[in-house]
């Protein structure tokens, strides 16, 4: 295999050293180069492979590889290669990195990133260059609103989308006075803004919006403040290490028993093992839940576990759906990756039977999808209902809408 792999591009292809990476990497390197007449389709991935968000980057990538492998490692009958680039989740490097993939590696498709700031830079350049770009995580509202573009799709979520339903749900539950808490950065502000919109619509009032300096994880002062405000409930958005710390501190401070904790799904996704019992009883909304009882989900989770040895999560699902989007559209144009118009048309028409349920694109290219209400029970995000069916981001300010 090594000869072939070197040919693909020693420089651009990130060789995974994990067992999972190797397994899938071998899977997409063709063993019989007989059909390799046409140039390969290039898919650029700009994701964090190092640093705090590395786990997300790897899950998205590995799920994409899984999806592509299931489709016989062909896109519209053509071979392809993944050009992986470490984004380091650093917006300062994002523009240069995007440029490297689009102009340098001349990728046909671009996908990524995790960080919203990186997504903003990526969307800007992708719009100018016209490369079809699939955002596989970052939720910045603007990407499918004022900054939307015909060649930009998002297979994940918008920040608004996952939090607005929680606002209406909490109001429905009769909660009146709520404190929201998040990091002081764009994604956090968008999340609690959407929550507030939904909550106030339902007649609730947000007592206070607490913004914690990013990426500070010292929450004790804020918890004391929350306790003295005596709200009916708390709505929180944190992710990764911050989520673990906040949920544990919240429980430790004895608040969980008195003031129920609600949040955006990322508060308890991929972090439950680290949070342990502290997360029990936390309510969250998200467009996915591990325990969704859909055949597509069960099948996907088993396959992902088999391929990587890890449990799938929402990020993996987003990566998997990104692969499905590519497979479907490329099949429609019979592998002609230059037929941008036709590809965009095919993508807009795409219907997904995804592990997360049925979904399709809105006019502004954001998923129209169900948002589930989940409760942590026995160390699992158990689905207790649908907070809102077929949630569609308003797409305000999008020219294509």
């Amino acid at each position: 295999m090594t000869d072939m792999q070197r040919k693909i591009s020693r420089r651009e292809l990130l060789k995974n050293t994990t067992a999972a990476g190797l397994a899938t990497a071998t899977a997409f390197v063709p063993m019989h180069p007989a059909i390799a007449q046409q140039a390969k389709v290039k898919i650029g991935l700009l994701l964090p492979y190092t640093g705090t968000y590395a786990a997300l980057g790897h899950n998205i990538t590995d799920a994409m590889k899984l999806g592509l492998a299931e489709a016989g490692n062909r896109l519209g009958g053509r071979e392809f290669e993944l050009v992986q680039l470490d984004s380091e989740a650093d917006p300062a490097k994002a523009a240069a990195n995007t440029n490297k993939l689009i102009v340098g590696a001349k990728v046909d498709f671009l996908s990524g990133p995790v960080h919203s700031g990186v997504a903003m830079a990526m969307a800007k350049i992708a719009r100018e260059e016209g490369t079809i770009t699939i955002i596989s995580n970052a939720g910045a509202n603007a990407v499918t609103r004022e900054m939307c573009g015909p060649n930009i799709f998002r297979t994940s979520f918008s920040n608004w989308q996952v939090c607005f339903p929680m606002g209406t749900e909490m109001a429905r539950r009769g909660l009146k006075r709520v404190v929201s808490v998040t990091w002081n950065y764009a994604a956090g502000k968008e999340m609690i803004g959407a929550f507030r919109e939904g909550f106030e619509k339902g007649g609730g009032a947000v007592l206070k919006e607490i913004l914690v300096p990013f990426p500070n994880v010292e929450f004790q002062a804020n918890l004391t403040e929350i306790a003295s405000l005596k709200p009916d409930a708390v709505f929180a958005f944190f992710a990764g290490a911050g989520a673990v710390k906040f949920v544990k501190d919240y429980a430790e401070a004895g608040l969980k028993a008195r003031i129920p904790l609600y949040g955006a799904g990322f508060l308890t996704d991929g972090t439950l093992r680290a949070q342990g019992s502290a997360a029990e009883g936390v309510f969250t909304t998200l467009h996915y839940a591990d325990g969704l009882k859909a055949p597509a989900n069960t099948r996907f989770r088993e396959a992902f576990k088999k391929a990587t040895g890890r449990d799938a999560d929402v990020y993996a699902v987003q990566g998997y759906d990104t692969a499905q989007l590519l497979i479907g559209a490329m099949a429609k144009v019979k592998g002609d990756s230059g037929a941008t118009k036709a590809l965009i048309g095919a993508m807009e028409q795409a219907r997904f039977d995804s592990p997360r349920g049925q979904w399709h694109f809105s006019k502004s290219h954001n998923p129209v999808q169900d948002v589930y209400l989940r409760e942590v029970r026995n160390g699992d995000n158990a689905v207790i209902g649908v907070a809102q069916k077929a949630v569609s981001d308003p797409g305000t300010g999008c020219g294509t809408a």
Partner: protein
Amino acid sequence: MPSLPRAILILLAVATIALAAVPFVGDRFHVQLITQIMVLATFAMSLDLLVGFTGLVSFGHAAFYGLGGYSLAILTRDASLVSMWATLPLAIIACGVAAAAIGCLSIRTSGVYFIMITLAFAQMAYYFFNDARGFGGSDGLYINAKPQLSVAGVTLLNLHNRTALYYVVFTVLVGSAVFLWVLLRSPFGQVITAMRSNEGRTRALGFPIGRYKFVSFCLAGMLAGLAGYLGAVQFGYVNPAHMAWRESGRVLMVVILGGTGTLFGPVLGAFVFVFLEDLLSGLTEHWLMIMGAFVVAVVLLLPNGIAGLLLRLTRNSSGVRPSDDAVIEAPRMLDVTARSGPILETESLTKRFAGLVAVNLASLRFEAGKVHAVIGPNGAGKTTLINMLSGELSPTDGHIRYKGIDITGRSPDFISRLGVGRSFQVTNIYPSLSCLQNCRIAAQSRLPSSMRFFRPASQLAKVACSAHFALDRCGLAARCHEPASALSHGDRRKLEIAMVLATDPELFLLDEPLAGMGAQEGREILRLLKAIARDHTLILIEHDMDAVFAIADTLTVMVNGEVIAAGPVDQVRADRAVQDAYLGHRDAAE
């Protein structure tokens, strides 16, 4: 800045031509990549002005880079103002103002504290743009209208065009290099370089070093802002992350990797760093480990960076040519008429250190045109006294008047400019500079201002003249192009005296000029001092009594911080108290 070996000059010329040719031969990606590198190189050079030449290690330089970009983003937000004529100067002014504000607060600190205070201000700028509403927060801002350069309605340059942008950035890079090169040869540049090499000496020569650091900080900030402006133009996107400490650290890495204090080093550093990142990040998932190992290896194996390696390789073959100097003009005659009346007076001068009284109520009169020796056993407070007279120490109490002007507690540079020069107990020179350069810096301090940025300092005839004259008087004329570090101990002391002479002082303070000299060296220095005494007032501390009696007109005797006697030599020698307390002991001891 020492002149570069020919091989490196040729290398740089070839590299410049190659860069100019890139858009003709390179593909689109490499044109963009090199644009990006040249922006980083300009940014790195601006930091080198601080780190490598001024001796200020800033860990917050990215704040100015980011601010340059943000200025553009904010100015062009409603796309009404896209002229480069307006946006570029405004962006640079904004950075200049910010640098002035941060600079005037930061330069009070030094060393690691300076590193940290610049970090603090940069982090505050980062959080300001990250938190404040209206600047796009952590998602950043787009620049949708790229600036244009037009004259009378004709668009000359549209930075949307990548080739145009390439050449603008190229011009800025070359222009910045030339600007900095000129700057470093100017009187201003000579001062900051000297300051980096020996701050205390520079202050004692009469330079207000704070002001020089401040100007350097502002210039570097504005240049960084220019780089930031271009960086923002290139990708049309700014983000607070451009101001974060990681970016400041990154550019610092580029400068150190390339070689500080060389200007071309940081440019090479930028190329190597970016190409290395480009190469490694595609190689393996654990590319940062290789990057780390590379960085460690560079530190251990190439202490002066890539530029240091190149210099080492080329120096052997070509050797350093001495730079050509201005013709020596006839020395200006010094005012040799001896003054009468006190040139310096102190009144109840007292210095206490945490309970210990170093100098107590010293009231002294030093007549002009004489040689005054201050003697006393170790710990008598002699050096403390001199340090107060020269402004290195601020008195706890009392007054000092120089020619009737109260100079109590004034800064060393102020006192020096009034005409008080001093030498130190431990010879205090610029070891890395040549003898002539040492004296030139000193002579330059007598210019009305060294805040001159363009004309080479070596062309200042008056300065060269004073410098040569001073070297000549001290018998170092033949060695004027040798580096000071190559001199013998005695010659270094002579050089220091020459430096002080070059500042054209009226009053000369000397702290143990004969300390550590061999017998022959001591005699030479003594002869030199006698010659100088013909047209200067001297106050000297000395332990060598034979020397003191050979040269001094008056004696001041200090014991335990008290002045126990002062007056003409013979009178003090005859003083019983002095004999008992000091001279007697000396005779007994020797």
